[in-house]
């Protein structure tokens, strides 16, 4: 990538930061990535506003040494290969909630400044937990608490009532649940005065990374071994021209507020889902025989911060509009990382997509998740020289790969499935529409 849009600041001027802390979220058109700092210090001035598109290398903020000294510019937008979502456990942040993709629009930011509302302690009621203007205005009705004496540069008012600004207000029951589950309390919750209530406490404990990865690693290991043992895999790939899709996407996103922008991954998922609806050999389960599914519940591989990979499903992905799919993807990702996936979402996927494009690999050869019939992979969207009408052109392309169960389908069906995905991605307008049942958008 050569440019990126700053989506969200996770720190504010005056915050103490430590080496390795995640301080911002940046949109790279493929996925959101987290930006970390490499020194200890105090956040000084934020140089880029959320929503701004900046070239790689632009300083994003100043980090000042603790106590005194000349300010140093720091935190340029990193190369995607250096920073990944699965970088390691976030340090210095008490909750997973805060690091979920929350977006602060310029309106919200300005309003908060005007009304002296501390956005760090605000829970958003917008889609995906986004802070809306209404949230900011509602927070003003709560009388401001005095600023913490150790934090003279922080915004003077806080949305929490009666407590010191950095104290978590929570119900006794919520505290007890958090203790029992071994999770950290959220900074703010859904209760009055942003108090954390029982419903805000995450279900599953956020185990220390090694512990959690250990448990999950074992489970993945078992599943992978079973898959390779039982499922006769065959593999196909194709390279898809994404010129039409990327152009359309850019045009769309230009006119949309940041909260409504669509990632390329969503298009890829939508095309996969729509194609899967027409290919029963690849969409369904194998349990003592082929059980095709008339529904497409699209499993999406999501990497977890502590390590490990999970693949919960988006229900009826073929019937959703692109916007709906995007919203579902955001929500599912956030909840998967917070450990709040519903039971149904684990057990229903009929086909899974793994997208490691942001890691820079060209193609992915996946291992099918039993009892599914196929695993679709997408590599990095990259520029390549393509022959178009006999003329070499530079186009964005992506390599789509298929690992499929040879008991349920053969190469002919698999090739047809990949070809359909490629076709669908040539007509993003049709792809974006909510489908009638199983027409998939493009003509068969």
């Amino acid at each position: 990538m050569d440019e990126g849009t700053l989506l969200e600041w996770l720190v504010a001027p005056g915050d103490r930061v430590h080496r390795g802390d995640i301080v911002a979220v940046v949109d790279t058109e493929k996925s959101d990535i987290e930006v970390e700092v490499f020194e200890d210090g105090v956040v000084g001035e934020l140089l880029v506003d959320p929503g701004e598109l900046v070239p790689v290398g632009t300083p994003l903020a100043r980090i000042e040494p603790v106590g005194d000294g000349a300010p140093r510019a720091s935190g340029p937008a990193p190369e995607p290969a250096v920073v990944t979502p699965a970088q390691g456990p976030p340090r210095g942040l008490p909750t997973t909630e805060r690091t979920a993709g929350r977006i602060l629009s310029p309106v919200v930011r300005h309003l908060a400044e005007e009304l002296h509302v501390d956005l760090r302690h605000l829970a958003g009621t917008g889609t995906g937990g986004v802070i809306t203007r209404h949230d900011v205005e509602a927070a003003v009705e709560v009388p401001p608490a005095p600023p913490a004496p150790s934090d003279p540069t922080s915004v003077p008012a806080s949305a929490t009532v009666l407590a010191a600004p950095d104290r978590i207000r929570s119900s006794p029951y919520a505290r007890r649940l958090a203790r029992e589950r071994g999770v950290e309390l959220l900074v703010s919750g859904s209760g009055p005065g942003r108090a954390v209530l029982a419903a805000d406490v995450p279900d599953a404990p956020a185990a220390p990374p090694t512990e959690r990865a250990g448990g999950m690693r074992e489970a993945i290991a078992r599943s992978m071994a079973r898959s390779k043992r039982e499922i006769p895999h065959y593999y196909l790939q194709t390279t898809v021209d994404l010129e039409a899709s990327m152009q359309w996407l850019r045009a769309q996103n230009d006119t949309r507020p940041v909260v409504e922008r669509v990632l390329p991954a969503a298009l890829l998922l939508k095309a996969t889902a729509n194609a899967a609806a027409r290919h029963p050999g690849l969409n369904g389960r194998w349990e003592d025989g082929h059980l095709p599914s008339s529904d497409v519940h699209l499993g999406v591989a999501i990497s977890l911060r502590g390590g490990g990979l999970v693949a919960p499903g988006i229900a009826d992905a073929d019937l959703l509009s692109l916007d709906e799919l995007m919203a579902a993807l955001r929500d599912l990702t956030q909840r998967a990382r917070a450990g709040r996936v519903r039971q149904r979402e684990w057990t229903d996927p009929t086909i899974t997509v793994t997208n490691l494009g942001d890691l820079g690999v060209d193609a992915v050869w996946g291992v099918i998740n039993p009892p599914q019939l196929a695993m679709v992979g997408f590599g990095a969207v990259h520029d390549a020289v393509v022959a178009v009408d006999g003329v070499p052109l530079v186009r964005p392309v992506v390599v789509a790969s298929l690992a499929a169960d040879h008991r349920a389908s053969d190469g002919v069906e698999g090739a047809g499935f990949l070809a359909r995905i490629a076709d669908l991605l040539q007509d993003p307008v049709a792809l974006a529409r909510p489908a009638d049942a199983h027409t998939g958008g493009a003509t068969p």
Partner: protein
Amino acid sequence: MSTTTYREAMRDALRAALRDDDRVFLMGEDVGAYGGCFGVSLGLLEEFGPERVRDTPLSEAAFVGAGIGAALGGMRPIVEIMTVNFSLLALDQIMNNAATLLHMSGGQCNVPIVIRMTTGAGRQLAAQHSHSLEGWYAHIPGLRVIVPATVDDARWMLQTALDDPDPVLLFEHGGLYGLKGELRDDLGPVDIDRAVVRRSGTDVTLITYGGTLGTVLAAADELAAGGIDAEVVDLRTLRPLDDETILGSVARTHRAVVVDEGWRSGSISAEISARITEGVFYDLDAPVGRVCSAEVPMPYARHLEEAALPGVGDVIRAVEELGFRG
């Protein structure tokens, strides 16, 4: 089973008591010839005669004290104080004698008296006729305070109260006399020391007694329509309070609102709230809410009185203020 009113159920209870035990007699202002200020004792004078259904002069202190003395002397008096408002004139006898004789005498003097009083507001009777002081009386060791809210309880709590060797104050909310309900004729004397869950629920416990039970049940129905499943606890007794039922419920629902027609400050709702904090603090997902009467002597004007008293809307608002998504 039969359909009857709270008033008639209480009358049946009185009649059965008078009939079954010669030691029982009813004494109070206008209980005989008038038939009872609220019609509860209508017909009893004709049935049992003036010795057993005694009209008294307007001397609350004397006839309550006489009831105490008669109880000491082996009788089982039912003393009716026309309303809790007038009981203040007999407060010395109730507190310094009825509640205290057993203890002062080192256990020698039982006072098996039942004192019935009408309580509550809602009929535009203004400041001196609208008190709910049962919470006050619940403060006093040595007394039992019971508050029947249903037709069954009106019929069957009295006998248990009469059988108790110690003083029992029985409060009848004035708005309940016309309450119609199914009476279980075969129930027999019921306990006077347990609360009852009148409506099971999972999201919040609504705790109340007496005249406000109907309001709270109606609020629970409305809350249900909005997706909040409320459990309603009818206290039935204010002294002793049934900690087990109250705390057990709140431990399950994690939220509580107490609805009490007394004034908020220093009321029985404050006591219950304190007990909930003491007992199940670590199960609470919200502060304990309270809906009480406004802190003002009861005004006469209808709209003001309505606004002063706990209403369905107040209960719903209190639940919503707990701040949870249903």
